[in-house]
C-alpha cells in the first residue's frame, strides 16, 4: 500500500513534465507566465469581465479626469497600455485627445 503511495508521489513530478509535453495549452500557459510574471493568480475571471463591462468608459470620475489632465502637462503623449491587468489609470485620454465623434455622413462602401 505505502509503496503505491510513494510511487504516486514520484510520478507526480513526471506527470507535470508530461503535462507540458502532452498539453499544448499548459505549454502556452507556461510561456505566458514567463512573460508576465505579475499576471493575476485568478485566471480569466474578474479582471477580464470587469474590463469588458467598463468598455467605453472614458473617465472613472472627475478626480481621474483631472489627474489625467495634470499628467498630460508633463508628458507629451500618453503611454500606450500594455498592462493586461490595468482597468483604469493614467492612460485615459483627455478631451483634447478624444477624436471628434461625428456620424459617418459618407455612405457605406458596401452600397457603392
Amino acid at each position, binding site marked *: 500500500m505505502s509503496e503505491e503511495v510513494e510511487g504516486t508521489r514520484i510520478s507526480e513530478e513526471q506527470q507535470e513534465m508530461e503535462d507540458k509535453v502532452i498539453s*499544448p495549452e499548459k505549454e*502556452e500557459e507556461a510561456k505566458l507566465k514567463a512573460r508576465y510574471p505579475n499576471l493575476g493568480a485568478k485566471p*480569466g475571471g474578474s479582471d*477580464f469581465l470587469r474590463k469588458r463591462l467598463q468598455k*467605453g*468608459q472614458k473617465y472613472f*470620475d472627475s478626480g481621474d479626469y483631472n489627474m489625467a489632465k495634470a499628467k498630460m502637462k508633463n508628458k507629451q503623449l500618453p503611454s500606450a497600455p500594455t498592462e493586461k491587468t490595468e482597468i483604469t489609470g493614467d492612460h485615459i485620454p483627455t478631451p483634447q485627445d478624444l477624436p471628434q*465623434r461625428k456620424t459617418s455622413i459618407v455612405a*457605406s*462602401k458596401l452600397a457603392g
Partner: protein
Amino acid sequence: MAGPGGGSSDVQWCFSQVKGAIDDDVAEADIISTVEFNHTGELLATGDKGGRVVIFQQEPESKNQPQCRGEYNVYSTFQSHEPEFDYLKSLEIEEKINKIRWLPQKNAAQFLLSTNDKTIKLWKISERDKRPEGYNLKEEDGRYRDPNTVTSLRVPVFRPMDLMVEASPRRVFANAHTYHINSISVNSDCETYLSADDLRINLWHLEITDRSFNIVDIKPANMEELTEVITAAEFHPNQCNTFVYSSSKGTIRMCDMRASALCDKHAKLFEEPEDPNNRSFFSEIISSISDVKFSHSGRYMMTRDYLSVKIWDLNMETRPVETYQVHEYLRSKLCSLYENDCIFDKFECCWNGNDSVVMTGSYNNFFRMFDRGYRQDMTLEASRENSKPRSVLKPRKVSTGGKRKKDEISVDSLDFNKKILHTAWHPLDNIIAVATTNNLYIFQEKLN
C-alpha cells in the same frame, strides 16, 4: 442525392458577388459588424461600425441565366445609430451595429430591429412606386397655387414613379441597459423580443417603448464576486415561452417564461464537464461562448466557443451531441493569441436551411462548414483572388505537421487580422453571405 441545402459532400460553392471597397486601407466605420438574411432570403442586411445599415435585395431569377440564382443589389441604406456620449456615466456609446434581426413580413413593408450597445431601434422599410399628381392647390413642383387662380377642379390621380425605398425609425427602445447589448431576438409570437447585455436580459413588446420587463439578472450584489457574464441569448424558434442564454464560462441556460416572471432559475443547464487535469489559464477564456443559435427545427442548438462548434440536443444537458474543431491548430498558439487579443474574438455561427450543415468563420479569411450527416468538413476562403464570376472555390487546408504540402498554408503564415466573424446562410437555398473585415462576399451553390 443531396436535397436543397444538402450535404457539403455534393455541394460545390462558387463565387457570386463581393461588395465593398477593394483598397487595403480600411476605415473603421466600414468594418462590418453583422450580417442577416430575412425570413425569405430575398433581403440581406449588413450593419457596420459606423452605425450604417445596408440592405441588399435578390433580383428575381432571370430566364437568360437559369444556372444561377438572382444577384443581390443595394435596396436601401441608412444611418441607424449615431455615436453618443453619456455624460452622467462618462461613457462613450459606440454607433456600431451589434445585431440586426428581421421581423417576419406581415404586410407590404419590411421591418427590422437594429441595436448598438445601448439602444434598439425598429426600422420600417417601405417601397413607394406611385405618387399623386394633379392637385388643385399645388403645382407639380410643390409650390402652392393661389386659390383665386383655380378655375376648374380635377381629381388627383396616382401615377407610377421610379421605385423609392424609404427607411424610417418607427420605435426607439432606449435606456433599458446599463451594460452593453450583445443580442436581440424576436419571439415566435412576433409581438415581443428580448435584448441581452452582459448581466441582464429584458423583454420588450414591439409596440411599447417606455417599458421593458427584466427577465434575467445575474448581477451579483457585490461586483467583486462577478464570475461570469451573458454572452448571447435567443428565443426558441417556435416555443414562445422558451429562450436560452450563454455565458463566458461555457454554459447555456434554458429558461421558461411560464415558470416565473424573473427567470434567474434556469429550467435546464447545458454544460460539458471539464477534465480538471486539462485546466489551464486559458481554459475559461476559450470556453466562453460567443454565439448560440437554435436549429430551424427547434430540436437542437449550436454554440461557438473559441476553438470549436458544438451541437446540443435540447433534451440532453450533460454534453453536446456533436463537437466540431474549427481550428484546433491554434491551441498551441494561445499565448500569442492572448497577447494580441485575438483570443477574445467573437465568432458567430449559423445553420443551413434544413439544419444539415453548420458554418462558422476563422482567420486568414477562412470559413468552415461542417456537414452533420456526411461527417465532412470543408475550409473555404473569401478573397478577391477567387473572385471570378461563378468560379468554383477550392477547399483550403492548414498544415499542422512539420511537412507542408503544396497549396497548404502553415499556421504561422495565417493572417490573424483577416477574421471572418459574421456569416449568414440563406434560409432556403444554398446561398451564403460571408463578411471579411470590410467586404461582403456572396457565394452560391454550383448549379448545373
